[in-house]
């Protein structure tokens, strides 16, 4: 399989002794969408900086389109489009001028650059605002211009570093649709970093969970969730019962990890749908009254908890106090 990105043992520390990357390795297949998922401070942005030639790794090797990012940065820069964390448009220029300059420094000139700019303005719904100064654009418009600018030279690999952080939910939904559209484009490979579990889940074909500068788990969203073996069953009880509850459910075939906590019962089952009638039956036989029951596929939050021993929220909090 052709690889768009190969990162092998990337390490990077910053002067004050902060280790940003600690042997980060992953591969992105050509034409696929890959997400680096992790809380703030996990090292995702540092990885993007190295892969986009902004920063040099202390150790390890990284190839983008089979070009070494350290040995051959200029060739890499021709291959990539980058949407950075936070908008990076020139707010004193118009949308069109931003696009034109970006095209020009990629060697597109004259009529070709004007046509390309217009094409992108149309595609990203910026045609009406094309000749207005970008300072007056809304957050969503600036973000769309950011993406358009990253696409001017039709790059083979697109980096999206936290593309929806700081956008309101409505704009985020639009953004997701746009990214999905990009991903569907022939041959384009996308590396996305995000700390939104549902963003990675929705957009990426494969996900690497990054924690403290390392990949701790990797796979398709379904694979990762499947590793938790089965669905989560959540039963609310009418009142608190004693030991009889756990005993009643514990012996059922295909049901495991039964935990009773006050008026709630949690368990895992290989097939939640099949297990629920059995569980309810068993509870009824034991004289336990049930008020509600839910079956859920495990979430990426559960996956994160399993691999790092922390919930995502706890890791975020830790990163911000560090």
């Amino acid at each position, binding site marked *: 399989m052709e690889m768009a990105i190969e990162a092998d043992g990337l390490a990077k520390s910053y002067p004050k002794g902060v280790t940003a990357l600690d042997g980060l390795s992953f591969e992105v297949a050509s034409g696929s969408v890959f997400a680096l998922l992790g809380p703030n401070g996990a090292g995702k942005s540092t990885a993007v900086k190295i892969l986009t030639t*902004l920063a040099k790794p202390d150790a390890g090797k990284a190839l983008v389109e089979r070009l070494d990012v350290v040995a051959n940065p200029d060739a890499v*820069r021709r291959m990539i489009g980058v949407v950075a964390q936070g908008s990076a448009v020139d707010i004193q220029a118009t949308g069109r001028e931003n696009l034109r300059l970006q095209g020009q420094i990629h060697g597109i000139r004259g009529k070709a650059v004007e046509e390309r700019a217009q094409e992108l303005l149309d595609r990203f719904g910026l045609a009406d605002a094309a000749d207005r100064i970008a300072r007056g654009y809304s957050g969503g418009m600036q973000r769309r211009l950011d993406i358009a600018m990253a696409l001017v030279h039709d790059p083979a690999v697109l980096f999206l570093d936290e593309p929806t952080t700081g956008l309101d939910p409505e704009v985020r939904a639009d953004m997701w649709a746009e990214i999905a559209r990009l991903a569907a484009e022939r041959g384009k490979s996308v590396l996305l970093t995000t700390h939104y579990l549902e963003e990675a889940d929705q957009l990426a074909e494969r996900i690497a969970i990054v924690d403290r500068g390392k990949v701790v788990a990797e796979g398709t969203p379904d694979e990762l969730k499947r590793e938790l073996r089965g669905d989560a069953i959540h039963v609310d009880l009418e009142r608190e019962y004693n030991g009889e509850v756990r005993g009643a459910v514990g012996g059922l075939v295909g049901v495991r990890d039964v935990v009773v906590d006050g008026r709630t019962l949690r368990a895992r089952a290989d097939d939640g749908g099949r297990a629920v009638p059995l569980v309810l039956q068993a509870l009824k036989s034991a004289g336990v009254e049930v008020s509600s029951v839910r079956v859920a596929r495990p979430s990426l939050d559960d996956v994160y908890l399993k691999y790092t021993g922390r919930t995502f929220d706890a890791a975020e909090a830790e990163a911000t106090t560090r």
Partner: protein
Amino acid sequence: MTLIRHTLYMTLRHLRELWRQPWFVAVTLVQPVIWLLLFGALFKRVIEIPGFHGNSYIAFLAPGVVVMTAMFSSAWSGMALIEDINRGVTARFLVSPVRREALIAGRILKEAVVVVIQSLIIVALALIVGASFPGGVGGVAALFAISALLGATFGALSNGFGLIMRQEEALIGAVQFIVLPLTFLSATFLAADLIPKWMQHVADFNPVNWAVVAGRSAVSGNADWGMIAARAGFLVALLALSVAFATRAFQSYQRSV
């Protein structure tokens, strides 16, 4: 070729930015007008001081104001770079194949262009209020070239310090600290023979003074071209050092990204 093209793209970007801030343009022009007209009127009788050569203070002052304005406007060049860095614009350029040198050279070239435009306006104004420049078009062109050299030098220094400080407030402080003493420790307002001895010695090492003395001689009608060439040579050397400094500062910024 690519370097020249990229530098031009950047220069045009910066000039367009300036053009879009008409208030900034107005303010940078009002200042030299005030210097020229106010100081011209205030020190009108300076020409009566024994030892002062020439018969019009405005004609004496105009080249000094041209040079001073070149320094004043270019010394702020680093502010826009700090803003670009803070907005992520510089990082965006760094992940593109743009020539790195163009990112600094474009700003320096823009300062040189702005200096020439400002100088034209100041000289025109001086002519309107009655000054004459016996050195003619050639002399005035030499004055412009010298001012542009000084402007480029201060543009490079400002970008270099901006890259090191990376804080607009710090750069404002540094510029204000440097600019006025350099103006007053020179023959901008008074002939060199009339300023205190120790100041004359300091002025010998002051690039602003090199530019003022050379520029004034060039427009004077009996230009000392040997001296002018020597001063211009100093300025070229200083410009080269300043560009080297700004380039080093940019490299250290790149390492810190």
